Protein backbone atom coordinates (compact mmCIF):
# COMPACT_ATOMS: atom_id res chain seq x y z
CA UNK A 1 0.00 0.00 0.00
CA UNK A 2 1.34 3.39 -0.90
CA UNK A 3 0.88 6.31 1.38
CA UNK A 4 2.60 8.83 -0.78
CA UNK A 5 0.85 9.48 -4.12
CA UNK A 6 4.03 10.95 -5.54
CA UNK A 7 5.81 7.57 -5.60
CA UNK A 8 4.02 6.30 -8.77
CA UNK A 9 4.73 9.69 -10.30
CA UNK A 10 8.41 9.11 -9.60
CA UNK A 11 8.21 5.68 -11.27
CA UNK A 12 6.69 7.22 -14.34
CA UNK A 13 9.20 10.05 -14.51
CA UNK A 14 12.06 7.55 -14.14
CA UNK A 15 10.69 5.53 -17.04
CA UNK A 16 10.51 8.67 -19.17
CA UNK A 17 14.02 9.68 -18.17
CA UNK A 18 15.43 6.20 -18.87
CA UNK A 19 13.74 6.11 -22.25
CA UNK A 20 14.86 9.60 -23.26
CA UNK A 21 18.43 9.34 -21.98
CA UNK A 22 18.77 5.75 -23.19
CA UNK A 23 17.62 6.42 -26.71
CA UNK A 24 19.71 9.58 -27.05
CA UNK A 25 22.71 7.62 -25.78
CA UNK A 26 21.96 4.73 -28.16
CA UNK A 27 21.65 7.16 -31.05
CA UNK A 28 25.08 8.55 -30.27
CA UNK A 29 26.57 5.04 -30.08
CA UNK A 30 24.94 3.63 -33.21
CA UNK A 31 24.95 6.67 -35.47
CA UNK A 32 27.85 7.36 -37.83
CA UNK A 33 30.41 10.00 -36.96
CA UNK A 34 31.85 11.87 -39.90
CA UNK A 35 32.86 15.26 -38.61
CA UNK A 36 33.78 18.11 -40.89
CA UNK A 37 34.20 21.85 -40.40
CA UNK A 38 31.02 22.84 -42.24
CA UNK A 39 28.84 20.56 -40.09
CA UNK A 40 30.20 22.08 -36.90
CA UNK A 41 29.28 25.62 -37.98
CA UNK A 42 26.00 27.22 -36.84
CA UNK A 43 23.36 26.65 -39.47
CA UNK A 44 22.31 29.81 -41.24
CA UNK A 45 21.10 28.46 -44.57
CA UNK A 46 24.60 28.27 -46.04
CA UNK A 47 25.56 31.88 -45.32
CA UNK A 48 28.52 32.79 -43.14
CA UNK A 49 27.23 32.58 -39.55
CA UNK A 50 26.51 35.98 -38.03
CA UNK A 51 29.10 37.01 -35.42
CA UNK A 52 28.06 36.46 -31.80
CA UNK A 53 28.20 39.10 -29.12
CA UNK A 54 29.96 38.32 -25.86
CA UNK A 55 27.98 36.21 -23.38
CA UNK A 56 25.35 35.08 -25.87
CA UNK A 57 24.24 38.44 -27.15
CA UNK A 58 21.54 40.88 -26.17
CA UNK A 59 17.90 39.96 -25.92
CA UNK A 60 15.06 42.34 -26.89
CA UNK A 61 13.56 44.05 -23.83
CA UNK A 62 10.10 42.81 -24.87
CA UNK A 63 10.90 39.30 -23.64
CA UNK A 64 11.90 40.65 -20.25
CA UNK A 65 8.65 42.62 -20.04
CA UNK A 66 6.64 39.55 -20.98
CA UNK A 67 8.36 37.58 -18.24
CA UNK A 68 7.56 40.28 -15.65
CA UNK A 69 3.92 40.42 -16.73
CA UNK A 70 3.80 36.65 -16.56
CA UNK A 71 4.89 36.75 -12.94
CA UNK A 72 2.14 39.27 -12.06
CA UNK A 73 -0.61 37.20 -13.61
CA UNK A 74 0.80 33.88 -12.52
CA UNK A 75 0.80 35.01 -8.90
CA UNK A 76 -2.74 36.22 -9.42
CA UNK A 77 -3.85 32.81 -10.64
CA UNK A 78 -2.03 31.31 -7.65
CA UNK A 79 -4.49 33.20 -5.45
CA UNK A 80 -7.41 32.22 -7.63
CA UNK A 81 -6.74 28.46 -7.45
CA UNK A 82 -7.19 27.98 -3.68
CA UNK A 83 -10.08 30.47 -3.76
CA UNK A 84 -11.82 28.37 -6.40
CA UNK A 85 -11.19 25.05 -4.67
CA UNK A 86 -12.39 26.22 -1.26
CA UNK A 87 -15.13 28.44 -2.67
CA UNK A 88 -18.12 26.56 -1.29
CA UNK A 89 -16.64 26.78 2.22
CA UNK A 90 -15.63 30.44 2.07
CA UNK A 91 -18.87 32.30 1.51
CA UNK A 92 -19.74 35.84 0.48
CA UNK A 93 -16.78 37.48 2.22
CA UNK A 94 -14.26 35.71 -0.03
CA UNK A 95 -16.28 36.55 -3.12
CA UNK A 96 -16.23 40.28 -2.33
CA UNK A 97 -12.55 40.02 -1.37
CA UNK A 98 -11.72 38.40 -4.70
CA UNK A 99 -13.63 41.07 -6.64
CA UNK A 100 -11.56 43.76 -4.91
CA UNK A 101 -8.36 41.83 -5.64
CA UNK A 102 -9.20 41.43 -9.32
CA UNK A 103 -10.06 45.13 -9.59
CA UNK A 104 -6.66 45.97 -8.10
CA UNK A 105 -4.93 43.76 -10.63
CA UNK A 106 -6.94 45.33 -13.44
CA UNK A 107 -5.69 48.78 -12.42
CA UNK A 108 -2.12 47.56 -12.98
CA UNK A 109 -3.21 45.87 -16.18
CA UNK A 110 -4.83 49.07 -17.52
CA UNK A 111 -1.66 50.99 -16.66
CA UNK A 112 0.53 48.53 -18.56
CA UNK A 113 -1.82 48.61 -21.53
CA UNK A 114 -1.89 52.45 -21.64
CA UNK A 115 1.88 52.62 -21.46
CA UNK A 116 2.12 50.29 -24.45
CA UNK A 117 3.55 47.39 -22.48
CA UNK A 118 1.29 44.94 -24.27
CA UNK A 119 2.20 46.08 -27.79
CA UNK A 120 4.80 43.87 -29.37
CA UNK A 121 6.28 46.51 -31.68
Amino acid at each position, binding site marked *: *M*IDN*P*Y*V*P*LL*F*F*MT*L*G*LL*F*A*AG*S*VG*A*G*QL*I*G*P*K*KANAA*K*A*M*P*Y*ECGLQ*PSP*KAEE*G*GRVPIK*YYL*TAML*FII*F*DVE*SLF*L*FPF*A*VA*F*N*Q*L*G*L*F*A*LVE*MVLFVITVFVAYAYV*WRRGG*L*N*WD
Partner: protein
Amino acid sequence: MSTLLTLAPEFASVVALPAADVPPSVPRADFSDTPIWLSAVKALLLFVFLLLNTLVVIWFERRVIGRMQNRPGPNRAGPFGLMQTLFDGLKSLFKEDVKPAAADAFLFTLAPILFATMAFVSFAIIPLGGTVNLFGHQTPLQLTDLSVAALLVLAVAGVAAYGVILAGWSSGSTYPLLGGLRSTAQVISYEIAMGLALVAVFLYSGSMSTSQIVEAQRNLWYIVPAFISFVVYVITMVGETNRIPFDLAEGEGELVAGYHTEYSGFRFAMYYLGEYINMFTVSALATTMFLGGWHAPLPFNLIGDGYFDSGWWGLLWFTIKMWLFMFFFVWLRGTLPRTRYDQFMAFGWKLLIPGTLLWVMAVAFIRGAQLGFLGDSSIAIAGREIPIATLIVIGVLLVAVLVVLWLWETKMTEREEAAAKAADVPEEIDPYAGGYPVPPLPGQRLREPSTYPALPRAGATATVVDTPTVENKEA
Protein backbone atom coordinates in the same frame (compact mmCIF):
# COMPACT_ATOMS: atom_id res chain seq x y z
CA MET B 1 -6.36 25.41 4.76
CA SER B 2 -5.20 24.60 8.27
CA THR B 3 -1.94 26.49 7.69
CA LEU B 4 -3.93 29.52 6.68
CA LEU B 5 -6.00 29.26 9.84
CA THR B 6 -3.01 29.03 12.12
CA LEU B 7 -1.33 31.93 10.39
CA ALA B 8 -4.33 34.22 10.50
CA PRO B 9 -6.82 33.27 13.18
CA GLU B 10 -8.56 36.63 12.98
CA PHE B 11 -9.16 36.02 9.27
CA ALA B 12 -10.74 32.69 10.06
CA SER B 13 -13.05 34.22 12.64
CA VAL B 14 -14.24 36.83 10.14
CA VAL B 15 -14.98 34.27 7.47
CA ALA B 16 -16.47 31.87 10.00
CA LEU B 17 -15.11 28.78 8.34
CA PRO B 18 -16.58 25.41 9.20
CA ALA B 19 -14.37 23.95 11.88
CA ALA B 20 -13.54 20.59 10.37
CA ASP B 21 -12.77 19.75 6.75
CA VAL B 22 -16.00 19.57 4.85
CA PRO B 23 -16.23 16.09 3.33
CA PRO B 24 -16.02 16.36 -0.46
CA SER B 25 -19.28 15.69 -2.22
CA VAL B 26 -17.78 13.14 -4.62
CA PRO B 27 -15.29 10.41 -3.70
CA ARG B 28 -11.72 10.37 -4.91
CA ALA B 29 -10.21 7.41 -6.71
CA ASP B 30 -9.43 4.68 -4.21
CA PHE B 31 -5.81 3.53 -4.30
CA SER B 32 -5.91 1.55 -1.04
CA ASP B 33 -5.76 -1.81 -2.86
CA THR B 34 -2.82 -0.83 -5.06
CA PRO B 35 0.47 -2.29 -3.87
CA ILE B 36 3.63 -0.52 -4.90
CA TRP B 37 4.65 -3.19 -7.44
CA LEU B 38 1.29 -2.75 -9.14
CA SER B 39 1.94 0.97 -9.42
CA ALA B 40 5.21 0.19 -11.16
CA VAL B 41 3.42 -2.17 -13.56
CA LYS B 42 0.76 0.45 -14.20
CA ALA B 43 3.46 3.04 -14.90
CA LEU B 44 4.97 0.71 -17.49
CA LEU B 45 1.58 0.01 -19.10
CA LEU B 46 0.76 3.70 -19.26
CA PHE B 47 4.16 4.36 -20.79
CA VAL B 48 3.58 1.77 -23.51
CA PHE B 49 0.06 3.15 -24.07
CA LEU B 50 1.47 6.63 -24.61
CA LEU B 51 4.25 5.49 -26.93
CA LEU B 52 1.84 3.42 -29.04
CA ASN B 53 -0.55 6.36 -29.26
CA THR B 54 2.33 8.57 -30.41
CA LEU B 55 3.42 6.07 -33.04
CA VAL B 56 -0.11 5.95 -34.40
CA VAL B 57 -0.85 9.67 -34.20
CA ILE B 58 2.11 10.67 -36.35
CA TRP B 59 0.94 8.24 -39.03
CA PHE B 60 -2.65 9.45 -38.49
CA GLU B 61 -1.67 13.07 -38.90
CA ARG B 62 0.23 12.44 -42.12
CA ARG B 63 -2.57 10.34 -43.57
CA VAL B 64 -5.31 12.83 -42.67
CA ILE B 65 -3.29 15.82 -43.89
CA GLY B 66 -2.64 13.85 -47.05
CA ARG B 67 -6.35 13.27 -47.58
CA MET B 68 -7.08 16.94 -46.90
CA GLN B 69 -4.56 17.82 -49.61
CA ASN B 70 -5.84 15.23 -52.12
CA ARG B 71 -2.92 12.83 -51.84
CA PRO B 72 -2.71 9.44 -50.18
CA GLY B 73 -0.07 10.14 -47.51
CA PRO B 74 2.38 7.46 -46.33
CA ASN B 75 0.99 4.05 -47.40
CA ARG B 76 4.00 1.86 -48.17
CA ALA B 77 5.52 0.71 -44.87
CA GLY B 78 3.33 -2.05 -43.44
CA PRO B 79 -0.47 -2.23 -43.74
CA PHE B 80 -1.85 1.24 -44.65
CA GLY B 81 1.63 2.61 -43.94
CA LEU B 82 1.14 2.07 -40.20
CA MET B 83 4.79 1.16 -39.63
CA GLN B 84 5.98 4.46 -41.13
CA THR B 85 6.54 6.21 -37.79
CA LEU B 86 8.40 3.26 -36.29
CA PHE B 87 10.73 3.04 -39.28
CA ASP B 88 11.27 6.81 -39.26
CA GLY B 89 12.23 6.55 -35.61
CA LEU B 90 14.62 3.69 -36.29
CA LYS B 91 16.12 5.63 -39.16
CA SER B 92 16.86 8.63 -36.96
CA LEU B 93 18.62 6.23 -34.58
CA PHE B 94 21.07 5.39 -37.36
CA LYS B 95 21.67 9.01 -38.38
CA GLU B 96 24.57 11.13 -37.27
CA ASP B 97 23.85 13.20 -34.18
CA VAL B 98 25.67 16.43 -34.99
CA LYS B 99 26.70 18.84 -32.26
CA PRO B 100 27.84 22.25 -33.55
CA ALA B 101 31.23 23.46 -32.33
CA ALA B 102 29.70 26.54 -30.68
CA ALA B 103 27.16 24.50 -28.69
CA ASP B 104 27.32 23.99 -24.93
CA ALA B 105 27.94 20.24 -24.78
CA PHE B 106 26.12 19.43 -21.54
CA LEU B 107 23.02 21.59 -21.96
CA PHE B 108 22.73 20.68 -25.63
CA THR B 109 22.17 17.04 -24.61
CA LEU B 110 20.25 17.79 -21.42
CA ALA B 111 17.60 19.98 -23.10
CA PRO B 112 15.95 17.31 -25.33
CA ILE B 113 16.05 14.73 -22.51
CA LEU B 114 14.41 17.22 -20.15
CA PHE B 115 11.78 18.11 -22.74
CA ALA B 116 10.85 14.48 -23.48
CA THR B 117 10.85 13.43 -19.80
CA MET B 118 8.63 16.32 -18.76
CA ALA B 119 6.27 15.54 -21.61
CA PHE B 120 5.60 12.11 -20.07
CA VAL B 121 5.10 13.18 -16.44
CA SER B 122 1.73 14.94 -16.65
CA PHE B 123 -0.04 11.89 -17.97
CA ALA B 124 0.37 10.11 -14.62
CA ILE B 125 -2.55 12.01 -13.08
CA ILE B 126 -5.02 11.52 -15.95
CA PRO B 127 -7.82 9.05 -15.07
CA LEU B 128 -8.13 6.69 -18.04
CA GLY B 129 -11.01 4.61 -16.75
CA GLY B 130 -12.95 3.32 -13.80
CA THR B 131 -11.84 0.80 -11.20
CA VAL B 132 -10.73 -2.49 -12.75
CA ASN B 133 -9.38 -5.81 -11.60
CA LEU B 134 -5.68 -5.86 -12.41
CA PHE B 135 -3.63 -8.92 -11.29
CA GLY B 136 -6.15 -9.66 -8.54
CA HIS B 137 -6.31 -6.13 -7.16
CA GLN B 138 -9.09 -3.59 -7.47
CA THR B 139 -7.33 -0.51 -8.79
CA PRO B 140 -8.41 2.60 -10.69
CA LEU B 141 -7.14 3.06 -14.25
CA GLN B 142 -5.09 6.02 -13.16
CA LEU B 143 -1.45 5.95 -12.16
CA THR B 144 -1.78 8.33 -9.24
CA ASP B 145 -4.02 11.07 -7.98
CA LEU B 146 -2.92 14.18 -6.13
CA SER B 147 -5.00 16.80 -4.39
CA VAL B 148 -3.24 19.32 -6.66
CA ALA B 149 -3.25 17.14 -9.78
CA ALA B 150 -4.36 19.87 -12.18
CA LEU B 151 -1.71 22.19 -10.79
CA LEU B 152 0.92 19.55 -11.50
CA VAL B 153 0.14 19.70 -15.22
CA LEU B 154 0.66 23.45 -15.28
CA ALA B 155 3.86 23.15 -13.25
CA VAL B 156 5.28 20.48 -15.54
CA ALA B 157 4.42 22.61 -18.57
CA GLY B 158 6.46 25.37 -16.95
CA VAL B 159 9.47 23.09 -16.50
CA ALA B 160 9.12 21.82 -20.08
CA ALA B 161 9.63 25.42 -21.23
CA TYR B 162 13.20 25.03 -19.95
CA GLY B 163 13.75 22.25 -22.48
CA VAL B 164 12.93 24.75 -25.19
CA ILE B 165 14.85 27.79 -23.98
CA LEU B 166 17.92 25.73 -23.06
CA ALA B 167 17.91 24.17 -26.52
CA GLY B 168 17.77 27.60 -28.10
CA TRP B 169 20.47 29.04 -25.89
CA SER B 170 22.88 26.10 -25.85
CA SER B 171 22.93 25.69 -29.63
CA GLY B 172 25.23 28.70 -29.98
CA SER B 173 23.42 29.78 -33.09
CA THR B 174 21.20 32.75 -33.98
CA TYR B 175 17.99 31.16 -35.19
CA PRO B 176 17.62 28.65 -32.35
CA LEU B 177 18.17 31.45 -29.83
CA LEU B 178 15.41 33.56 -31.38
CA GLY B 179 13.15 30.54 -31.70
CA GLY B 180 13.71 29.52 -28.08
CA LEU B 181 12.95 33.04 -26.83
CA ARG B 182 9.81 33.25 -28.91
CA SER B 183 8.61 29.86 -27.85
CA THR B 184 9.14 30.56 -24.16
CA ALA B 185 7.37 33.92 -24.33
CA GLN B 186 4.54 32.20 -26.15
CA VAL B 187 4.22 29.31 -23.71
CA ILE B 188 4.26 31.47 -20.58
CA SER B 189 1.80 33.97 -22.07
CA TYR B 190 -0.74 31.30 -22.90
CA GLU B 191 -0.17 29.36 -19.71
CA ILE B 192 -1.84 32.16 -17.73
CA ALA B 193 -4.99 32.06 -19.82
CA MET B 194 -4.95 28.26 -19.59
CA GLY B 195 -4.70 28.33 -15.80
CA LEU B 196 -7.45 30.94 -15.54
CA ALA B 197 -9.71 28.89 -17.80
CA LEU B 198 -9.34 25.95 -15.43
CA VAL B 199 -10.33 28.08 -12.42
CA ALA B 200 -13.96 27.95 -13.58
CA VAL B 201 -13.79 24.15 -13.47
CA PHE B 202 -12.33 24.22 -9.94
CA LEU B 203 -15.14 26.55 -8.89
CA TYR B 204 -17.69 23.96 -9.98
CA SER B 205 -15.88 20.85 -8.77
CA GLY B 206 -14.41 22.31 -5.56
CA SER B 207 -11.32 20.19 -6.13
CA MET B 208 -8.14 19.97 -8.17
CA SER B 209 -7.93 16.20 -7.99
CA THR B 210 -8.55 14.85 -11.48
CA SER B 211 -10.46 11.78 -10.30
CA GLN B 212 -12.82 13.98 -8.30
CA ILE B 213 -13.31 16.37 -11.19
CA VAL B 214 -14.21 13.46 -13.46
CA GLU B 215 -16.54 11.98 -10.85
CA ALA B 216 -18.30 15.32 -10.40
CA GLN B 217 -19.07 15.32 -14.12
CA ARG B 218 -21.04 12.09 -14.02
CA ASN B 219 -24.31 13.92 -14.65
CA LEU B 220 -23.23 17.11 -16.41
CA TRP B 221 -20.01 17.67 -18.31
CA TYR B 222 -18.34 20.96 -17.46
CA ILE B 223 -18.28 21.96 -21.11
CA VAL B 224 -21.90 23.10 -20.56
CA PRO B 225 -21.61 25.40 -17.50
CA ALA B 226 -18.03 26.47 -18.33
CA PHE B 227 -18.31 26.71 -22.10
CA ILE B 228 -16.23 29.88 -22.44
CA SER B 229 -13.49 28.28 -20.37
CA PHE B 230 -13.54 25.36 -22.76
CA VAL B 231 -13.12 27.65 -25.77
CA VAL B 232 -10.25 29.51 -24.09
CA TYR B 233 -8.62 26.23 -23.08
CA VAL B 234 -8.79 24.86 -26.63
CA ILE B 235 -7.17 28.03 -28.00
CA THR B 236 -4.44 28.05 -25.37
CA MET B 237 -3.68 24.35 -25.73
CA VAL B 238 -2.77 24.98 -29.37
CA GLY B 239 -0.56 27.88 -28.25
CA GLU B 240 1.04 25.78 -25.51
CA THR B 241 2.01 22.94 -27.82
CA ASN B 242 3.47 25.18 -30.55
CA ARG B 243 1.11 23.86 -33.18
CA ILE B 244 -0.23 25.53 -36.32
CA PRO B 245 -1.64 28.21 -36.39
CA PHE B 246 0.50 29.16 -33.36
CA ASP B 247 3.77 27.42 -34.30
CA LEU B 248 5.66 30.71 -34.41
CA ALA B 249 8.68 29.21 -32.68
CA GLU B 250 9.27 27.12 -35.78
CA GLY B 251 8.27 29.64 -38.41
CA GLU B 252 10.46 28.23 -41.15
CA GLY B 253 10.14 31.37 -43.26
CA GLU B 254 11.80 33.40 -40.52
CA LEU B 255 13.68 31.07 -38.18
CA VAL B 256 14.67 28.01 -40.27
CA ALA B 257 13.25 25.53 -37.71
CA GLY B 258 13.29 27.57 -34.51
CA TYR B 259 14.82 26.21 -31.33
CA HIS B 260 15.68 22.77 -32.75
CA THR B 261 17.46 24.01 -35.89
CA GLU B 262 20.80 22.58 -34.75
CA TYR B 263 19.38 19.24 -33.60
CA SER B 264 19.66 16.06 -35.60
CA GLY B 265 19.55 12.33 -35.05
CA PHE B 266 17.82 11.08 -31.92
CA ARG B 267 18.19 14.32 -30.01
CA PHE B 268 15.89 15.84 -32.60
CA ALA B 269 13.59 12.82 -32.38
CA MET B 270 13.15 13.59 -28.66
CA TYR B 271 11.67 16.99 -29.55
CA TYR B 272 9.46 15.41 -32.15
CA LEU B 273 8.24 12.81 -29.66
CA GLY B 274 7.82 15.36 -26.88
CA GLU B 275 5.70 17.60 -29.06
CA TYR B 276 3.23 14.81 -29.80
CA ILE B 277 3.09 13.62 -26.20
CA ASN B 278 2.42 17.21 -25.15
CA MET B 279 -0.47 17.23 -27.58
CA PHE B 280 -1.81 14.08 -25.96
CA THR B 281 -1.40 15.57 -22.51
CA VAL B 282 -3.32 18.77 -23.24
CA SER B 283 -6.00 16.77 -25.07
CA ALA B 284 -6.28 14.37 -22.15
CA LEU B 285 -6.56 17.29 -19.73
CA ALA B 286 -9.26 18.89 -21.90
CA THR B 287 -11.14 15.58 -21.84
CA THR B 288 -10.76 15.30 -18.08
CA MET B 289 -11.72 18.86 -17.30
CA PHE B 290 -14.51 19.54 -19.75
CA LEU B 291 -15.72 16.37 -21.47
CA GLY B 292 -16.40 14.15 -18.47
CA GLY B 293 -13.11 12.23 -18.60
CA TRP B 294 -13.66 8.50 -19.02
CA HIS B 295 -17.43 8.66 -18.51
CA ALA B 296 -19.56 7.36 -21.34
CA PRO B 297 -21.33 9.90 -23.56
CA LEU B 298 -25.05 10.35 -23.23
CA PRO B 299 -26.83 7.41 -24.87
CA PHE B 300 -24.35 4.84 -23.53
CA ASN B 301 -24.30 5.82 -19.86
CA LEU B 302 -28.02 4.97 -19.54
CA ILE B 303 -27.72 1.42 -20.90
CA GLY B 304 -27.73 -1.47 -18.45
CA ASP B 305 -27.48 0.55 -15.22
CA GLY B 306 -24.17 2.19 -16.17
CA TYR B 307 -22.53 -0.99 -17.49
CA PHE B 308 -20.76 0.93 -20.25
CA ASP B 309 -19.82 3.66 -17.77
CA SER B 310 -17.41 1.69 -15.62
CA GLY B 311 -14.18 -0.29 -15.59
CA TRP B 312 -12.36 -0.95 -18.83
CA TRP B 313 -15.08 0.71 -20.92
CA GLY B 314 -13.82 4.04 -19.57
CA LEU B 315 -10.56 3.52 -21.45
CA LEU B 316 -12.52 3.31 -24.71
CA TRP B 317 -14.51 6.50 -24.13
CA PHE B 318 -11.45 8.33 -22.88
CA THR B 319 -9.39 7.32 -25.92
CA ILE B 320 -12.15 8.35 -28.31
CA LYS B 321 -12.52 11.77 -26.69
CA MET B 322 -8.77 12.33 -26.59
CA TRP B 323 -8.43 11.38 -30.24
CA LEU B 324 -11.18 13.82 -31.19
CA PHE B 325 -8.87 16.56 -29.94
CA MET B 326 -5.96 15.02 -31.86
CA PHE B 327 -8.09 15.13 -35.00
CA PHE B 328 -8.85 18.75 -34.21
CA PHE B 329 -5.11 19.51 -34.07
CA VAL B 330 -4.60 17.86 -37.46
CA TRP B 331 -7.63 19.60 -38.89
CA LEU B 332 -6.24 22.97 -37.80
CA ARG B 333 -2.95 22.15 -39.46
CA GLY B 334 -4.73 21.24 -42.67
CA THR B 335 -6.80 24.43 -42.61
CA LEU B 336 -5.14 27.49 -41.10
CA PRO B 337 -2.03 29.50 -41.99
CA ARG B 338 0.37 30.71 -39.30
CA THR B 339 -0.49 33.88 -37.39
CA ARG B 340 1.86 36.83 -37.07
CA TYR B 341 3.78 36.97 -33.79
CA ASP B 342 2.55 40.41 -32.66
CA GLN B 343 -1.04 39.40 -33.45
CA PHE B 344 -0.58 36.22 -31.47
CA MET B 345 0.78 38.01 -28.40
CA ALA B 346 -1.82 40.79 -28.60
CA PHE B 347 -4.59 38.20 -28.79
CA GLY B 348 -3.25 36.45 -25.71
CA TRP B 349 -2.58 39.50 -23.56
CA LYS B 350 -5.35 41.86 -24.66
CA LEU B 351 -8.24 39.47 -25.14
CA LEU B 352 -7.71 36.02 -23.64
CA ILE B 353 -6.29 36.99 -20.26
CA PRO B 354 -8.67 39.85 -19.27
CA GLY B 355 -11.60 38.07 -20.91
CA THR B 356 -10.95 34.85 -19.02
CA LEU B 357 -10.46 36.72 -15.77
CA LEU B 358 -13.83 38.44 -16.14
CA TRP B 359 -15.41 35.12 -17.06
CA VAL B 360 -13.98 33.50 -13.93
CA MET B 361 -15.46 36.27 -11.79
CA ALA B 362 -18.81 35.81 -13.53
CA VAL B 363 -18.68 32.07 -12.79
CA ALA B 364 -17.80 32.86 -9.16
CA PHE B 365 -20.94 35.00 -8.88
CA ILE B 366 -23.15 32.40 -10.54
CA ARG B 367 -21.70 29.72 -8.29
CA GLY B 368 -22.07 31.94 -5.23
CA ALA B 369 -25.71 32.50 -6.08
CA GLN B 370 -26.25 28.76 -6.53
CA LEU B 371 -24.65 28.02 -3.17
CA GLY B 372 -26.88 30.62 -1.53
CA PHE B 373 -24.19 33.15 -0.61
CA LEU B 374 -26.26 35.97 -2.07
CA GLY B 375 -29.58 35.14 -0.44
CA ASP B 376 -31.75 32.07 0.02
CA SER B 377 -35.13 33.00 -1.43
CA SER B 378 -36.11 31.13 -4.53
CA ILE B 379 -39.02 30.99 -6.90
CA ALA B 380 -40.53 28.06 -8.75
CA ILE B 381 -40.24 28.20 -12.51
CA ALA B 382 -41.69 25.28 -14.48
CA GLY B 383 -41.74 23.14 -11.38
CA ARG B 384 -38.09 23.75 -10.42
CA GLU B 385 -36.87 25.80 -7.49
CA ILE B 386 -34.47 28.45 -8.85
CA PRO B 387 -32.78 30.87 -6.44
CA ILE B 388 -33.68 34.48 -7.17
CA ALA B 389 -30.01 35.45 -6.72
CA THR B 390 -29.03 33.20 -9.63
CA LEU B 391 -31.55 34.89 -11.89
CA ILE B 392 -30.39 38.34 -10.82
CA VAL B 393 -26.71 37.46 -11.36
CA ILE B 394 -27.37 36.01 -14.80
CA GLY B 395 -29.51 39.03 -15.70
CA VAL B 396 -26.82 41.47 -14.62
CA LEU B 397 -24.17 39.52 -16.53
CA LEU B 398 -26.29 39.49 -19.71
CA VAL B 399 -26.84 43.26 -19.48
CA ALA B 400 -23.10 43.78 -18.88
CA VAL B 401 -22.23 41.70 -21.94
CA LEU B 402 -24.71 43.63 -24.07
CA VAL B 403 -23.37 46.99 -22.86
CA VAL B 404 -19.78 45.93 -23.62
CA LEU B 405 -20.78 44.74 -27.09
CA TRP B 406 -22.62 48.01 -27.73
CA LEU B 407 -19.63 50.09 -26.60
CA TRP B 408 -17.34 47.95 -28.72
CA GLU B 409 -19.50 48.38 -31.79
CA THR B 410 -19.75 52.17 -31.30
CA LYS B 411 -16.00 52.40 -30.94
CA MET B 412 -15.34 50.27 -34.00
CA THR B 413 -17.73 52.37 -36.13
CA GLU B 414 -16.06 55.55 -34.93
CA ARG B 415 -12.66 54.11 -35.73
CA GLU B 416 -13.74 53.10 -39.23
CA GLU B 417 -15.18 56.53 -39.93
CA ALA B 418 -12.03 58.22 -38.66
CA ALA B 419 -9.89 55.94 -40.81
CA ALA B 420 -11.98 56.73 -43.90
CA LYS B 421 -11.70 60.45 -43.16
CA ALA B 422 -7.94 60.24 -42.58
CA ALA B 423 -7.39 58.38 -45.81
CA ASP B 424 -9.43 61.07 -47.69
CA VAL B 425 -9.88 59.01 -50.80
CA PRO B 426 -11.12 61.08 -53.78
CA GLU B 427 -14.20 59.61 -55.38
CA GLU B 428 -12.87 59.63 -58.87
CA ILE B 429 -9.35 59.29 -60.19
CA ASP B 430 -7.66 59.63 -63.51
CA PRO B 431 -5.87 56.32 -63.94
CA TYR B 432 -3.22 57.80 -66.25
CA ALA B 433 -2.43 60.92 -64.18
CA GLY B 434 0.96 59.56 -63.10
CA GLY B 435 1.94 58.40 -66.56
CA TYR B 436 1.17 54.71 -66.04
CA PRO B 437 -2.18 53.03 -65.25
CA VAL B 438 -3.21 52.94 -61.58
CA PRO B 439 -6.00 50.65 -60.29
CA PRO B 440 -8.80 52.30 -58.27
CA LEU B 441 -9.01 51.98 -54.47
CA PRO B 442 -12.14 50.35 -53.01
CA GLY B 443 -15.17 52.57 -53.61
CA GLN B 444 -13.38 54.73 -56.18
CA ARG B 445 -14.52 55.32 -59.71
CA LEU B 446 -12.23 55.58 -62.68
CA ARG B 447 -12.52 58.57 -64.96
CA GLU B 448 -12.66 57.14 -68.40
CA PRO B 449 -9.97 58.89 -70.47
CA SER B 450 -11.50 60.61 -73.51
CA THR B 451 -8.65 59.41 -75.70
CA TYR B 452 -6.48 56.50 -74.85
CA PRO B 453 -2.73 57.15 -74.94
CA ALA B 454 -1.18 56.03 -78.18
CA LEU B 455 0.28 52.57 -78.06
CA PRO B 456 3.98 52.31 -78.76
CA ARG B 457 4.56 51.46 -82.40
CA ALA B 458 7.14 48.97 -83.41
CA GLY B 459 10.54 50.60 -83.57
CA ALA B 460 9.37 53.80 -81.83
CA THR B 461 11.74 55.53 -79.41
CA ALA B 462 11.22 56.61 -75.82
CA THR B 463 8.76 59.51 -76.30
CA VAL B 464 5.59 57.65 -77.03
CA VAL B 465 3.05 59.37 -74.79
CA ASP B 466 2.27 63.01 -75.54
CA THR B 467 1.67 64.11 -71.96
CA PRO B 468 5.05 64.33 -70.26
CA THR B 469 5.16 62.32 -67.05
CA VAL B 470 6.74 63.56 -63.85
CA GLU B 471 9.87 61.55 -64.43
CA ASN B 472 10.20 62.88 -67.97
CA LYS B 473 9.98 66.47 -66.75
CA GLU B 474 12.69 65.92 -64.21
CA ALA B 475 14.87 64.28 -66.79
